[in-house]
């Protein structure tokens, strides 16, 4: 019997981004349940993986590792930064986190909500930014919808802690980028609030890997 049921949950907490990444990769590779997705790819999946990076100093390390492979070209940090901080939507992308955070149907969730809120009440539990919008993303024929559903910002012990909820998370290609995007947004907010960045936590609802990635994951885990 596969160890697979919908309330399955795993919590991983590591000091660095690299260690956290390797731990979640190892966990899903060893414990994930196999299934075939709609594109006929063999996947391994675990539901509700919570991963916390305590110290963000090496936040770009997983991307550096991914970029060392010659078989693909990983997006640059500059492009990743603009994907979350650029306020203008771009026709080149099916959706855009930056425009959803800073200009969601005219609402600037960061400058007009998060910053004043946390300035006024640093202990607030309402520091939420939403990327997913039912009016935009629940259309049956909609091709692409945001993977990162929302982010939450809490100031505790004078540090800004960020939590990001990801509905569908490719742990190999996607997670390294998601934590960097979360970091860039947290960095923007922390500078405005004059606080340090604390931890970054990801909650991956469907955490998965694809068969063609296994070879590279094994290389990464055994190096």
């Amino acid at each position, binding site marked *: 019997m596969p160890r697979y049921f919908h309330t399955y949950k795993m919590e991983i907490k590591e000091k660095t981004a690299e260690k956290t990444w390797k731990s979640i990769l190892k966990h899903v590779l060893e414990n994930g349940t196999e299934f075939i997705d709609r594109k006929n790819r063999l996947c391994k999946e675990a539901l509700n993986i919570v991963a916390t990076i305590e110290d963000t100093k090496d936040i770009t390390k997983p991307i550096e590792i991914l970029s060392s492979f010659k078989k693909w070209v990983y*997006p640059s940090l500059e492009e990743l930064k603009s994907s979350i901080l650029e306020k203008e939507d771009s*026709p080149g992308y099916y959706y855009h986190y930056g425009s959803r955070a800073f200009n969601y149907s005219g609402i600037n969730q960061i400058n007009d909500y998060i910053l004043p809120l946390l300035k006024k009440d640093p202990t607030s539990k309402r520091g939420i930014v939403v990327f997913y919008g039912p009016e935009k993303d629940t259309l049956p024929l909609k091709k692409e919808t945001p993977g990162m559903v929302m982010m939450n910002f809490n100031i505790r012990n004078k540090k800004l802690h960020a939590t990001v909820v990801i509905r569908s998370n490719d742990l190999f*290609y996607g997670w390294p980028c998601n934590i960097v995007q979360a970091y860039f947004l947290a960095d923007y907010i922390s500078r405005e609030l004059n606080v340090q960045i604390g931890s970054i936590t990801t909650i991956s609802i469907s955490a998965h890997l694809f068969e063609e990635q296994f070879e590279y994951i094994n290389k990464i885990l055994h190096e």
Partner: protein
Amino acid sequence: MEETREKIIELFKNKGSEISTGELLNYVYGSKTNKDNADSKRESAQMHRKLLYHINKLVENGILRFSRHGEKGHKFFALDIGENEEITEFSSKYKRKLTVSKPLMPLMPIETYEHQGIINKFETESWIDRLNSVVIMCKKVDSIDKLNALFESAISVINDCICLENFEDIINKNKKEDVIKLIEKINSECKDYGKQVSCTIDISKINKGNFLEILQKAASNETNKVMFIYSLDAHDVQEQFAILNEILVAYMKKKKLIYFKNKRATNSLQFVGSAGPYSILEKEWENKKDCLSFACAQSSLIVDVEKFYSVYGLDTEKFAQLMLNVSKSFLSANTLQRRKSKDYFKSIISLDKTNEKEFLELSRNYIRFWNYGLLQPGIDQKLVLNMINEAKKRIDEFSMAEETIYKSCGMPTRFKIALSCAFKEANEKLSSAKYKKLEITGLEDLYKPKIRKDIMEKEIASSVLNGGNDITFHRKGNFDSQEIMRELSIIINAYKMPLFSFNFEGSGDAKILSYL
């Protein structure tokens, strides 16, 4: 700073790359003059001289440089600055600072091949900030004025070709005089700006009354910047016999190249620019949204396969590696295009706001092969096709991996690469053409084993070149339109070639039959 020079710089600031004197003239001195009028011609020449005076000043100051000659005496100029360099001028009129910079060309793993002449960028100056081709759906355009406006917007964002799909809709719904004027205007602007237009016409949908006069303009050698592509199948050859006869007669008389799309081979869009043919993937064409206009091709790189042979031989692995490097270069270019798409393509995207997201949804990058040796003596054709096929697999794998990565990173985007052939005009540095002409003198030639074999080889190449391939039948000897119609029927029925053309240049006397 002098006001005229400010305006010149302003246009370079808005459009970046290379600009013709014609385009500068329109921008700096306002609306176009009526070229039929002698006074207007004189006035236009005066303005041209005035403009050149200011351009020369900017050249002297090291801001602009002459880049090439265009048609009708037009010259092209480009910014004389390197990447990351900026020109800053203070505007006296607007009390503001004008800063012009050139888009940073990312480091690309093809530079060695470029030095060797194996890889050539199509339109280097505007390789990143303009699209190769844009399609306008005439069905969605309700008037000639609207089409004119769309054309004006599209011409400023492309560096090769605009396709006017379903042009028969424009022919059928408007006065023939207006359509003729439109064709003349489009042709004239294409000459000024060094661009091309393809009008696709489904012959089964043409309103004959309007079309026959327009046809004379279409077949005329004066309108050589506007290509007409006639879509037909064998049924149309039978049913539209009279109109097809008129079309063939008009082209034969002028000895003008005529393009056909074989509806039996494809439902999808096929057209030509000066770089080569363009197409949309069949499946994507069937599922496309009902847009007013969309991009078909983003950037093109031309691979001179002849030069590759001379340096590396027929090495499949090295060729596949080269194609992978080409793909990586497209990725870098597309990244910049995507991020700047609102600036670069604003004029056309803003005309169809509801479909902004779909504007780049069908577009591909083009690898165009030149002298790819399929009919070269001494070269194993199967090996050449294998080499291209192997490279195609790698390109597809790479493209798919990149789409997966971008999607996983929350930046879902399109990254597709098409393979096609290049036309000689695509780049002046290409090696001299080494293609064997497909010559036919009559119907019986199409049954000759040698010619059938040659056509079948071209047909196989068409199946590999998924971005479009043009197969030209060089028609020799005397001929009549009826016989050519029979040849057309055979080609359409026997071969799966989506796009082909008849070249009547080498023909002798034409026996022209009239059926109307």
